[in-house]
């Protein structure tokens, strides 16, 4: 029912694409991260919560239609519904049903409940398209509560030592998780690219802690001893370095590995991720009972080999989603809040 074309994942029966990376007429969008929701589509379809994100990131005048979770609509005879993917707010797995055959394109997902995103719901299907960002058995997340505790302890320690806690996390999803985790611990400042997305959360009725939006181009001495959240594109930039008495922490699944922690030379690293870990991926895939799995972005070849080894027929698929080989966020120090680089974590 689906084919992988140079434009993106295509459903021929319905004549639409899912998360296409080239301009097309009709695009179904799993979630608002930039590598899945690109500009230039004539018509967008997404979950209600993703709509304000698309408008904020791509443009207010785009043509967007939105639906709720589990709501079935028909596109050229294909039954289409969006189901919670637990990745970030509004993130969805797109379920397609046509002539008794069911395909689920899951976008990015995680099975942990982060307390903000609608929790992941497994959907039974014949074919399942899965990401594999952390598809290696070394990636196993701690429970959300433990991770938040670690983060809180670290902030508390900084406060005791008179330091400013600077936390680095993606502006959509991660930043809001961090905000929730440190709620009530002190003055909270977020970079304005995060502030803009917070509005999308608030319009969905999600209560975020009180925060101040900052513009790092201004004098930032007043941030001293506060809690500051900035996006990864600003990591190690001159503007962030100006923040007084800082201790920095990176919040990312990659921080699970010591080499990655050391290489970034932050003062702390927390393996907090919005992607499924190794067991999360396996659990999700098994729950679909799919007879065929397409493995996209991440550890594609290793994860595919493993699935086949345990008896789940799988195939590697090349996509333009958060591909590590093309990851531009890693060393990029550019400040471009309106065109944020692909979210790959």
């Amino acid at each position, binding site marked *: 029912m689906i084919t992988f074309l140079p434009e993106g994942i295509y459903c021929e029966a319905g004549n639409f694409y899912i998360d296409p990376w080239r301009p097309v007429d009709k695009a179904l969008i799993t979630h608002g991260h930039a590598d899945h929701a690109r500009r230039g589509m004539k018509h967008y379809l997404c979950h209600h919560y993703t709509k304000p994100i698309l408008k904020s990131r791509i443009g207010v005048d785009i043509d967007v239609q939105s639906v709720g979770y589990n709501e079935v609509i028909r596109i050229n005879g294909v039954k289409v519904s969006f189901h919670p993917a637990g990745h970030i707010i509004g993130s969805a797995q797109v379920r397609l049903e046509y002539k008794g055959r069911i395909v689920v394109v899951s976008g990015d997902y995680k099975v942990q409940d982060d307390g903000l995103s609608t929790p992941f719901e497994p959907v039974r299907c014949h074919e399942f398209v899965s990401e594999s960002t952390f598809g290696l*058995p070394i990636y196993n997340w701690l429970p959300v509560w433990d991770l938040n505790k670690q983060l809180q302890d670290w902030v508390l320690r900084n406060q005791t030592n008179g330091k400013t806690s600077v936390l680095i996390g993606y502006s959509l999803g991660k930043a809001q998780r961090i905000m929730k985790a440190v709620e009530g611990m002190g003055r909270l400042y977020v970079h304005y690219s995060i502030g803009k997305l917070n509005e999308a959360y608030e319009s969905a009725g999600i209560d975020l802690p009180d925060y101040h939006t900052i513009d790092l181009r201004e004098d930032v001495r007043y941030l001293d001893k506060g809690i500051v959240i900035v996006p990864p594109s600003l990591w190690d930039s001159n503007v962030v370095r100006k923040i007084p008495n800082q201790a920095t922490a990176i919040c*990312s699944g990659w921080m699970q*590995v010591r*080499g*990655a*922690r050391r290489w970034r030379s932050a003062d702390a690293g927390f393996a907090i991720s919005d992607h499924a870990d190794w067991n999360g991926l396996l659990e999700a895939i098994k729950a679909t009972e799919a007879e065929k799995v397409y493995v996209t972005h991440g550890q594609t070849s*290793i994860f595919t080999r493993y699935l086949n080894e345990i008896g789940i027929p799988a195939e590697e698929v090349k996509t333009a989603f958060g591909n590590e080989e093309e990851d531009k966020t*890693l060393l990029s*120090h550019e400040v471009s809040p309106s065109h944020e680089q692909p979210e790959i974590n």
Partner: protein
Amino acid sequence: MKSFVRLVSALDITNKTTQKLEAIDRFLDEADEQDKLWLLALFTGKRPRRNIHSGLMRQWAIERSGISEWLFSESYSSVGDMSETIALILPQPRENIERSLSEWMDLIMGLKDKSEEEKKSFVLESWDGLPATERFIFNKLLGGSFRLGVSSKTLINALAKRYDLDANAVAHSIMGDWKMGEVTFEGLVNGNYSDTQLSKPYPFCLAYALDKLPENLGNIGEWQVEYKWDGIRGQFVKRKGEVFIWSRGEELVTAQFPEIRDELLRWRGDFVIDGEILVIKDDEVLNFSELQKRLNRKTLTKKMMEELPVRVFAYDLLEWEGEDWRGKAMDERRAKLEMLFQLNPSSHLRLSAIIPCLNWDELTALRENARDMRSEGLMLKHRQSPYHTGRKKGNWWKWKISPLTIDAVLIYARKGSGRRSAYYTDYTFAVKSEGKLVTIAKAYSGLTDKEIQEVSRFVNKNALEKFGPVRTVKPELVFEIAFEGIGFSTRHKSGVALRFPRIVRWRKDKTVDEIDDIEEIKKLIK
């Protein structure tokens, strides 16, 4: 072990000295005396021997986690460290074992006389009772190859500051020859087991690189000119019949150079000499790479001492018969140093030769040939200068020969682990050899972030083969590689080893046909 784990993790991640000091301070607040003592023991290399082969640990981890061999290998190549791979790959712990560092160390040392079965059940039980970070450290402790992410200087400074002691005295106390079980932490740090005053070194006097024409230094007669050597700068302290050798990093290295120590023990007088440790064979100074072979060895064999005989070139005299001579003029100190050598006919120590020179032009020519002597260049010291503390501009200058450079082509690129796996940051370069290519050097630094991105894109497009994180790439990109020295080597396929290779720049103007040839490069070796 929680405090210790927190310390290791903190030292590991941050590269800010203040954060490291804070972490050490926190550990000293939290840990008990035995754990603190173990920190010093591990830090100074007094760790128990490895009792379990790492291959066995790998095998047990594969069994326990129920994954295939190939998946373990893929994981390992992504993580880059065996202890860590094992720690991450095992299932979540089902229990929570709370033991102090010293309790763990006692158990680990107790493994020596245990059977393989007993060892295995101990390891499996421990793995099942520790979260990933603690498991990692447990594996490292088992492996007997533990490194803390802190320099001895930082640790010593932290201890000195906290207990209000002199840093060199602390260094002397903890670097000395003590054993677990025979000392207490407090006694050790306070120097109760040694006379720390006896070994006290002086801060080294350092020179600036000459930043003007030598003609501007005035009359050449006012300057003492010597060769600059590429060895280990050392301070040789002899007081009350005891000898201590300090390296410039303020580490006590006496035990690494027994022949020097023994000779100085026979010398008459109490003194402190500043000099350079070098390997000198048949009157010829050997490459630094030869000296390196002798450093930080657990045991120094007789064979090694014969094959790589170390000698000292003495530069200066800082103390004589208990009196601090650093304030006296260079001339005066040199005269006393020469007297000391007359008093003690010596085979292992020599005076650093003073180069007689009548004018700057002659000296400029001499510098050009300094490499022939295996020297790095020249030292210019004002004859009236005192022995300064640290680096001070004006009296001492180093006048190094320019580094050697070659043009080489990129042939392998390596990704790191985790997050950095997106970019190729470690490169291997090759030069021509009989119409083929031969590996000449690895270099890690020297490119900007933007260039790393550009190289990575090239690697992605032009990868020929894949070996885990390593790619062989089409030999096309040419880089200029600089290095400080070059020597013959049997360990390298090219037959040569470069010292401090680094990328100077990307030669986008050059093609692979223009890179250097190994035979030409060998001619640089003198």
